[in-house]
Structures are given as C-alpha cells and as structure tokens.
C-alpha cells in the first residue's frame, strides 16, 4: 500500500512536482497545518511578507521576471480579502499566479465562523478559475489543475481554497497527469491561410506598423527573438504598449517608442495614419486607442492574440489570428522566407515615404522637457538613472502615476521580462512588493522600483520583508509631494482645483529607511543627483532614495480624453511656445 499523506503535505508535494522554489505568504489560523509542514520541504522557500497584498504583488514580480507562476499562501478571511487587489491586478495584466488560501473547517462553512469569508465567491470575478476543495481525494488533482489553468493559454491568477479539516485528513498522493488540453480547448486556432493573408497584406502595404503588447512577453523569450527577426526582416516601424516594453530594443531605430495616452508623437501619429496595423499580443485598451471611433481610420487591422475574446472586443479587425504569439510569428517568418525572401529590399522603396513622414514626427522630439539647474526634473532623474544603470541588465518595477509614465518614456528596455508595472488595474503600491519578488527570483541582479511618494506609502511595510531576506532592492522615489497624475488631471480638466491630491504630512524617507534598518539617500539638486545615484548603486543593501523633484511638472505628451491619436498635447511648450529643446540643454 502506498503511503498516506495529510492535506498539508499534499500541498507541498504538489508544489515540488510543479517545480515551485519560492512561495510568498503570511500565516494564520486556517493555514497553520500547512505552515507546520513547511520545514519538511527544504526545496521550497517561504518569503514572509508584511501584508497579503504584498505577497500577491511579490508573486507577480516573481512571475513576470522569471516566466514561472508565482505562488501565494494566505489564511482565510482577511488573509484572502487582502490578496484580492493583487489577484485582480494579475487578472488584468495576464500574470500566472496560484494562490492557496486556508478556509475554516468544512462543518463551519456558512456559519459566519471566525475569519470565515466566501473566498471563492469574492475571488470568482478576479481569477481565471477557483476551487473550494471539500474532499481530500480531490486535493492533489485540483492543485495540479490550478497550475495548468494559471499557466496555459492567456495566463492569469487562480485560487485554491482549502478548509482546515482537509489539511489534516490523509490520502494517497497523485502525481500530475501529462495533459495539455484544457477541456478540449487548444490555443492555436489559425491555419496557413491566415498567415498567407497576413503576408499578402504586408507586401501590399506602404504605411505599415507593428503594434505589440504584453502577449509577446507572456509567450516567452523566444517570442521576443522572433519578433525582432520579423521586424528586421520587414523593415517596418514598431511601437509597443506599456506592457510590451522590452520585447523589442528600446534604442533601436525602427522602434517608435511607446504609444497611447502618454506615448510618443511619432508612435501615435503612425498608428493614426498607417494603412496596415499588425497588433501582436495587445488588446486595444482604452489608454491605447483614445477616441475609439476615430482610431486609425484608414488602416487594415490584423490582430494576433491567444485569447479569442480579445478579438473584435474594442476594435473590429480585418484579419484575426488566434494563437500563441511565438507559434504565429514562427509560421509567419517561415512563410515570409519561403515566399518573399527579398521582402526587405522590395519593400524599402515602398515604405520610404512612410519613414520620411515618421522622421518628421520624430523631429518634434515629443519627450523633450524644459530643463532646470535648480530643481531636479523628474524626467531628468529617470534619464540619469537609465544612463547610470543601462549596462547592468537591471530589472525595473514601478508604482502607478506620473513616475510610471516617465519611466516608460525615458528608461529604454532591451530585453523582455525586465519591466514590471501595473498597467490594466493601475495599482498604486504595486512596485515595492513586486521588486521584492523580482529580487527573490534574481538575487544577483539590480532591481529598482521607480516610485512616487504617494504610491510607495501604500505598501511601504514590505521594506521590512526586503531587509529580512537581504534583498537589496532600490526604491527610487520621485518625490513631488503630490499624487502627480491626479494633480495633472485636476490642472487640465478641473480648473486647478487640487482637491485632496497634496500630501501635507509625508514621512522623512531617509529616517524611514533607517527605521526599517536599510539605507536612506536624498537628492535635492540636479548637481548632486549622479553622485547620489552612484552611491545607491554601490550600496549592497535595500535603499530608499528620496529624489526631490519639481512639484508641478506634468507628464507629456498626452492624448487628452475623447481625442484621437493625431490630436496630442505636446507639453507646456504647446501653449507657451517657449520651446527649449535638446536633452538637458541647461544641464548636461
């Protein structure tokens, strides 16, 4: 007879078989049997967070930077409700997470027991799927299935709720079954015909553009390689969403920068005027499209996505290719080589006028800003941070707001999985715990959270986690004392009525760092900025960097709400026309 294992042991046996090496969690009454077993499974390391939301975001950072699912372990009731924000965040940005939550014993379910809540009910709309395990014999299969659902197709979060009595009961352990199909749902639904159509559209186009998104990153590093190959083979311009940054080199000449509400002038105008738009793993989000009925009016649109429900959801497309980006790109490249081996040469002529137009838009230099010698401009801070870290293969996380957009605009990414930001849900407080997770996955790498002072205070307690596990994350705060993006919208749309967007009693971040037993550094002038950044980079401990920046700087360029791509506001210079161009003219 084979050995009997308790439910708690089975949880870890499953994790071993799913190659889990780190879990992020917080103990509590309903998961104590699982925590009791932790010491017997040496290959699985537990990272104790300070709040369950932190566990969720740390698991997201871990997943996005490593390509493996992030695993969370929390208790019932408040443990589960605290992780809801992170699950929703992962659902919006398609990040694979497996959350194990404790539940009150089965006989107490429905009695309003201590720390009971309807966890599967609460998390149903923010997970791909969830399970309440009421029979010990279902436990192993359910957990294996959970990993499969989280990581296949369009990835996303799942949750397995395990009542305490199930954790104690014993049964035989079942290994994962080798099964790749989900309820008969396979993920590639395209045929050679649609690839041929795509190539035909590509060869006819004189104003093409690639519009790529997080789907390329989610499809794995190979997808980014294939994308580069395809973009170089065609000579087409390429733009990327916030989530897609890094799948194509940010400093390449064919890259037009990020598109969308705070995207570059050239990317948005090219999207508006193109005759062929090839969307690869992006979802026509409202921050990207602007006014939907004036979105790229003259183009044929191709949409490559693994999720059939993304097709024609916001924008009607002419050719849909449902499949994994990697598979679709490799078929496309193969056909392109066979049928149009001289594509690049034959195409150069055709797209030369288009490139001229793009160069004209580029010459506007929409990311330029007005420099200063007295105060640190936030864009300047990011530029310097980039210049001083670009050779280090660094990992960047962000919070949400102006600093996030400036980071996306001014930090250039060359590799996938290096940029972790909350795009869909826009969760303030994401970046610090995400950085914890990234550093756990990549202990030797440089991990920086580009933060705002308001966002970072939402999950600042996770500094304590970073210190406990010697995770030398760098929290680079662009401190303008305002919720900058809120302030910006209030300035532009609500007659400068800065209602509740100023934080009147901020902590002293240097002292705060010291209180957490990490290192605090403050930079007040542009002159000292470089030295301070270098000091931060040379510190092998967690650092909170308080970068005091211009308080009223706005994030430009931008597409105002209700406007199409070709009606961007370029910046204060747009109104005042006191254009000072040239990167840091007054500074460098």
């Amino acid at each position, binding site marked *: 007879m084979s050995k009997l294992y308790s439910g708690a042991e089975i949880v870890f046996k499953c994790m071993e078989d799913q190659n889990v090496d780190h879990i992020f969690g917080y103990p509590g009454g309903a998961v104590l049997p699982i925590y009791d077993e932790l010491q017997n499974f040496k290959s699985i390391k537990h990272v104790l967070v300070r709040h369950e939301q932190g566990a969720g975001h740390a698991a997201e950072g871990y997943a996005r930077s490593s390509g493996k699912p992030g695993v969370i372990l929390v208790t019932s009731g408040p443990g589960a409700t605290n992780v809801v924000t992170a699950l929703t965040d992962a659902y919006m940005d398609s990040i694979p997470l497996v959350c194990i939550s404790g539940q009150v014993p089965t006989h107490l379910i429905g009695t309003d027991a201590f720390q009971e809540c309807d966890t*599967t*009910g609460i998390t*149903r*709309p923010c997970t*791909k*799927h969830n399970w*309440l395990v009421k029979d010990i014999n279902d436990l192993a299969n359910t957990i294996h299935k959970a990993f499969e*659902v989280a990581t296949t197709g369009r990835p996303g979060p799942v949750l397995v709720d395990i009542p305490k009595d199930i954790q104690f009961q014993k049964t035989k352990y079942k290994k994962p079954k080798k099964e790749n199909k*989900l*309820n*008969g*749902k396979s993920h590639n639904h395209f045929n050679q015909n649609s690839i041929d159509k795509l190539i035909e559209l590509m060869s006819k186009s004189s104003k093409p553009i690639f519009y790529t998104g997080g789907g390329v990153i989610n499809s794995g590093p190979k997808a980014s390689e294939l994308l580069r190959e395809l973009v170089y083979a065609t000579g087409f311009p390429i733009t990327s969403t916030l989530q897609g940054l890094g799948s194509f080199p940010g400093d390449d000449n064919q890259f037009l920068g990020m598109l969308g509400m705070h995207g570059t002038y050239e990317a948005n105008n090219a999207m508006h005027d193109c005759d062929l738009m090839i969307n690869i793993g992006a979802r026509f989000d*409202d921050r990207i499209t*602007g*006014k*939907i*009925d004036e979105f790229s009016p003259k183009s044929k649109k191709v949409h490559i996505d693994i*999720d*059939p*429900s993304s*097709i*024609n*959801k916001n924008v*009607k497309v002419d050719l849909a290719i449902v499949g994994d980006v990697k598979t679709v790109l490799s078929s496309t490249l193969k056909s392109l080589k066979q049928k149009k081996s001289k594509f690049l040469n034959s195409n150069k002529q055709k797209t030369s006028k288009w490139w001229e137009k793009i160069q004209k838009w580029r010459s506007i230099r929409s990311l330029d800003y007005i420099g200063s010698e007295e105060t640190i401009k936030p864009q300047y801070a990011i530029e310097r941070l980039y210049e001083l870290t670009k050779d280090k293969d660094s990992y960047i996380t962000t919070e949400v707001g102006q600093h996030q957009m400036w980071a996306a605009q001014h930090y250039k990414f060359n590799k996938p999985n290096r940029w972790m930001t909350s795009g869909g849900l826009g969760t303030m407080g994401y970046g610090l715990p995400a950085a914890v997770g990234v550093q756990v996955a990549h202990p030797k790498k440089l991990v920086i959270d580009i933060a705002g002072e308001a966002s970072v205070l939402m999950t600042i307690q996770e500094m304590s986690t970073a210190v406990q596990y010697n995770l030398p994350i760098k929290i680079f705060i662009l401190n303008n004392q305002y919720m900058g993006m809120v302030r910006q*919208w209030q300035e532009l*749309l*609500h007659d400068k009525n800065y209602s509740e967007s100023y934080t009147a009693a901020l902590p002293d971040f240097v002292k705060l760092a010291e209180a957490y037993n990490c290192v605090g550094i403050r930079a007040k002038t542009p002159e000292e900025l470089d030295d301070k950044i270098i000091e931060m980079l040379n510190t092998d401990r967690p650092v909170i960097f308080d970068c005091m920046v211009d308080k009223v700087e706005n994030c430009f360029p931008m597409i105002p*709400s*209700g*406007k199409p791509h070709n009606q961007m506001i370029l910046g204060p210079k747009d109104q005042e026309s006191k254009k000072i161009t040239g990167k840091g003219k007054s500074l460098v």
Partner: protein
Amino acid sequence: MPNSKSAYSFSNKKEKFDTHIIVVWVDNEAGVLARVVGLFSGRGYNIESLAVAQVDEKLNLSRITIVTTGTPQVVNQIKLQLRKLVPVHKVADFKREDKAVIFKEMALFKIVGPNNKLEGALKACKKYNPVILDKTKKSNVIQITALRREIDKMSKDLKKFGLVSVSRTGAVAMTRGADIFK
C-alpha cells in the same frame, strides 16, 4: 455629456439590440451558475430569462439557457467569454427569429372566480396546450407552454377572468430535425 472632463471618453453611439438565446453546456459543479451569471452581471450584459437543470447525470452535465439582448459585438463577446470559463463545454447561440430552433417557456396561472370565469380562462388559453393541474370549485391552476410574448399577453388577458398568481420559467431551446448542436 458635455466636453468630457474625464480620464475616459464617452460614446453616444446608439446601436441596434438583437435578442439571442444562448445555450451553455457546463459541468454540474458548485458555483458554476454563479460563474455564468456573474460573467453577465460583471460585464454588463443583460439576462432576460434563465433556465438551468442537469441534463446528463452520468456525464454530470447541466444545460443553461439564457435569453439576452445586445449588439452583435456584445453577443459575440458573450459567447467568447463564456467559452473561456473552465467548466463550460460548449456554447450555442440562436437568434429568436431562427425558424430552425424551437423556443418554449412554461407558465402556471392561478385563476380564482365563478365557474364561467374559470371556463373563460381555459378557453382563452386554448391555443397554448392548456393543462388543468389543480381544480376546486372556486379556482383553477392552468399550465401552458408558449413563447415569451404569448405568455406576456396571456398574463394580461387573463386578468379579467380572475388571474391572481403567475409563475413562469425561462425559455428553453432545441434545434428542429435530426441534427444536434455540436
């Protein structure tokens, strides 16, 4: 909406709504109805009526029939979103005008009144296969099967005959002929 002072743009486009009958085959497991219904409410889709019951004990399958309205784009989204749910096996979509599909709803009417009124009520129901399920000197419970709008009409017409209570199911659907939906 005047000049939108918002981080979002507003649409003032009005599109035509069609009525569709969506049939979903699901694993009969705890919470599956909540998943389907939650998807509708969470994404702002309409549910006009709903009928659900287990149809295959051995395979543990339930069949959910939902009558909904929406633009073609919305109806397409409903189908695609439903297919993403893990316990969903297949999804069928029929237009209400579709002649190849039978739609039926059942209603129970309780009529209270003198004999002539009870008879009048029964007569009025004649077209819809009326069955008397319960009969006393003062009352009748009549069952009819019909289309939604026919039952709507009967619920109004029977008032004058002493209708005191109506109970009705959601629509169920089945294709005509020998073929089944795959």
